[in-house]
């Protein structure tokens, strides 16, 4: 599992934010398009793609996409 691949899959979940805006250090909760509904979409994506169950706190305690990537990786 690679960081770039994770960022790509993360970006795919968003309709109105340009894919180029998603970087390892992007603070995803600060994105204009972000809402708590996207948290569910991200949990679903991680479950689908990596077979990992994220908890609410995993999202809450992650600031950047890389933070979340590390959480997913640690649960692998």
């Amino acid at each position: 599992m690679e960081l770039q691949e994770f960022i790509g899959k993360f970006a795919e979940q968003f309709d109105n934010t340009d894919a180029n805006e998603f970087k390892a250090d992007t603070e995803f909760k600060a994105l204009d398009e972000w809402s708590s509904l996207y948290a569910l979409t991200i949990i679903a994506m991680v479950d689908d793609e990596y077979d990992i169950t994220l908890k609410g706190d995993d999202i809450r305690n992650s600031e950047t996409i890389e933070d979340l990537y590390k959480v997913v990786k640690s649960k692998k």
Partner: protein
Amino acid sequence: MAFLEFKNVRIVGISAAVPKKVVKLRSRNSGYSDEEYSNSVGVKETHVDDSFTTSDLCYYAAEKLITDLKWEKSEIDAIIFVSQFPDYILPATSPILQDRLGLSTECYAADVSLGCSGWVYGLSLISGLCNGSIKKALLMAGDARRMQDQKDPLFGYAGTVTAVEFSGGNNGFDFHFGSDGSGYDAIIIPDGGARNQFTAESLKVHADDDGISRNSLQSYIKGMDVFSFAITTAPKSIKKLAGKHSLDLKSVDYLILHQANKQINAKIAKKLDFEQDRVPESLTNYGNTSSASIPLTIVTGIGKRLQNESKRFIACGFGVGLSWGSVFFELDHCFISSLVEV
């Protein structure tokens, strides 16, 4: 490994009652529009009217079903009432329903406090009771008059009745159950019970982690935790049940899921390889109706056509507790009453 099997028992009829009054879904958060919210959770409207308690709705549904089935009230030997919104803290609501329905004072009556998993749990209890000495029984399940007004727009009111009968030779029900109380606060009304008794403080409004303001008599939901619990636990429970009984899920006509949220249910169905037409829903027009959601979905999503057919079902309830249960059963010429709107 909570697997259970009850033979010689079957469901002969199902009914449901909802308030006539329809409430359109409104977003509770300024971060997204009403429409975005509605599309995401899958609820367009709910039926909500504080003139009715859960037991009122179950009463109307029971009167309708008893009439439709032409049951004699004197033959009904047991009722179980599943709800998290009983009429009083005490007494239990089931004896009140026994009296209101004019059932015999020899009737076995008990309440069960479970939510989303409640119909499946209640069905196991009532099928365990229908062993021959008890022949006809009613499982009543639902929630209404929640202490929450507009704060939880996803929840609709409904009361349902499932008529269960001793039936020699019938295949009955195969169940799988689970509980995880470590998630007790994932969905919780913190105050008003014995742990945190009601005080003036209980009415103070606080903002939760998602920025939604509620008082301590209204339900708090950790949405993300409930979501991840549901999309993982429900499919696992159903797979365990199918594995235990060497049941091919392709041979199941309908998967009836607790109506939690569109994304959750779509994920569960996808994981189990059920196409949309085998997964009826009631979420769009009735919202999340807690323990009523499975029978309400059968009444509104499949309905009358079950009367002349035999169909195989898997139903799964999951949520508050945390608690979950799955059941496999057949409905053979089962009477489905038309929806009661009061």
